[in-house]
């Protein structure tokens, strides 16, 4: 589905990414790991269309593409950012449909927001994700896990084929982490490909099919989760092992 071929990214003299290859298939969860500044976020931003790589190729369904935030979205790539990017003052349903509000025509002419339809559809999305989030609740009043569900439901709205999750389990409680991991599993079952950035080793091992490790902009490992171990990945991240 998604393929990066020897992608490089330079910011002036700084090489954020060097010769990175990456492949991701439908229904596959790839855990992207690395220390701060290893290039994880840069890679994610390239796939989300925020950055154009300075070298290499990006392929989608085996065809070269030039991604912009808009075109990435149109292809079916949705990013869920670390800070969740939600509006605290609006309801869950309003956040799910932010920028893509459903409307109906009053008396056949006047466009008005279709609150009922948005409420119904977001309730369906939350149910699909197995979350107890209620459509009418304000995001301000929600737990970290519920907020994550809202962010994911928003990304799910367009039935994406690839979801980019940036630290979805940072800064939430243990019980909520379990909820989020469950969300990821259910997305995978529905055939969505997932690129998961996380610092938490245990989360990546719990849901990822494959683990990719970046160190100083280079890919130093890319192997099935089952063939690796937390010790090995830690060593790869820190550089105790050169590559695997």
């Amino acid at each position, binding site marked *: 589905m998604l393929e990066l071929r020897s992608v490089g990214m330079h910011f002036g003299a700084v090489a954020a990414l060097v010769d990175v290859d990456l492949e991701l298939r439908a229904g596959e969860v790839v855990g992207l790991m690395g220390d701060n500044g290893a290039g994880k976020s840069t890679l994610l931003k390239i796939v989300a269309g925020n950055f154009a790589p300075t070298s290499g190729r990006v392929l989608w369904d085996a065809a070269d593409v030039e991604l912009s935030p808009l075109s990435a979205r149109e292809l079916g790539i949705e990013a869920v950012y670390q800070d*969740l*990017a939600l509006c605290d003052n*609006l309801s869950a349903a309003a956040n799910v449909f932010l920028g893509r509000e459903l409307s109906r025509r009053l008396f056949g002419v006047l*466009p*008005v927001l279709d609150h009922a339809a948005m409420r119904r559809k977001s309730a369906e999305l939350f149910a699909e994700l197995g979350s107890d989030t209620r459509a009418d609740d304000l995001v301000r009043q929600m737990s970290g896990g519920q907020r994550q569900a809202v962010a994911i439901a928003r990304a799910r709205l367009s039935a994406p084929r690839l979801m980019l999750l940036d630290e979805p389990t940072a800064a939430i409680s243990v019980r909520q982490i379990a909820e989020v991991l469950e969300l990821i599993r259910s997305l995978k079952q529905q055939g969505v490909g997932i690129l998961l950035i996380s610092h938490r080793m245990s989360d990546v091992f719990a849901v990822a099919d494959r683990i990719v490790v970046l160190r100083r902009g280079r890919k130093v490992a890319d192997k099935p989760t089952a063939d690796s171990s937390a010790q090995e990945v830690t060593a790869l991240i820190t550089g105790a092992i050169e590559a695997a």
Partner: protein
Amino acid sequence: MLTVAALAGVMSFVSEPFASADNLFNVSRNFAFIGLIALGQTAVIATGGIDLSVGSVMGLAGIVTGLVLGSGQPLALAAAAGLGCALLCGLVNGALVGYLRLSPFVVTLGMLSIARSLALVVSNNRMIHDFGPDEDLVLALGGGRFLGLANPVWLLLVAALGAAAWFRYSRLARHVLAVGGNEVSTRLAGIPVARVKLTVYVLSSLLAGVSAILMIGWLGAVTNALGQGYELRVIASAVIGGANLMGGEGGAFGAVAGAALIELIRNSLLLLGVDPYWQGAFVGGSIVVAMLVERVRRGRQAAG
């Protein structure tokens, strides 16, 4: 809203003239001018901004309308000229805040000074009371009544209902609240944040212009001091009505209730024979109390 009803209830017992038709007519007309502008201000505040220029824009729009009327032009043309000036002020405010991302406080503070100065320039500091051939029409529009209510009150009612529907049902209003809630995420969601901001500042200025045209009809004359200091009463109305200066909250009826409450307090003090020098203290105090009540309410919500 409850506070307004309660205060009105108490006053009708305490003071005989309060509940008289004449007094209520006056009170409602007085707050109609402010309430109308407070509707626009509420939208601006909901984006996390503020519009300090509404009083001066009123002055400029009023003077321009008066001048064009005085030169013998019909009301429609004069109103268009006045509203055109207001529109320009709003466009400048909105463009600077939205597209150049300047601070709303500073931009509209500048416009407060600019629009007032332009009003002085174009009027040459004269009072305008000759409204030309359409004079009767102007006076009737702003000063007249219909079915027992002053015309500005009718307009406020219609505008408030329209604004309430707008807040609840329009996509733009939803985006206004979203910008006030989390501007970054709103931008990430693909919403044209700058355009949303431009729209609310234009709306705010236009409503100030409409209010100005009604007001010169009521006063029968216009000086360049029209609307001086009104920005504070307008902002106070919006805030008492529940608009959150941090953005993301506010409603149409709240703004009207806020304007009504301020006018009721002023009127009540007058009728009770309190020295008018005290008015500012009471109005200011009520703003602070409104914020405290809001804080208590919010605190309880967060705890629950």
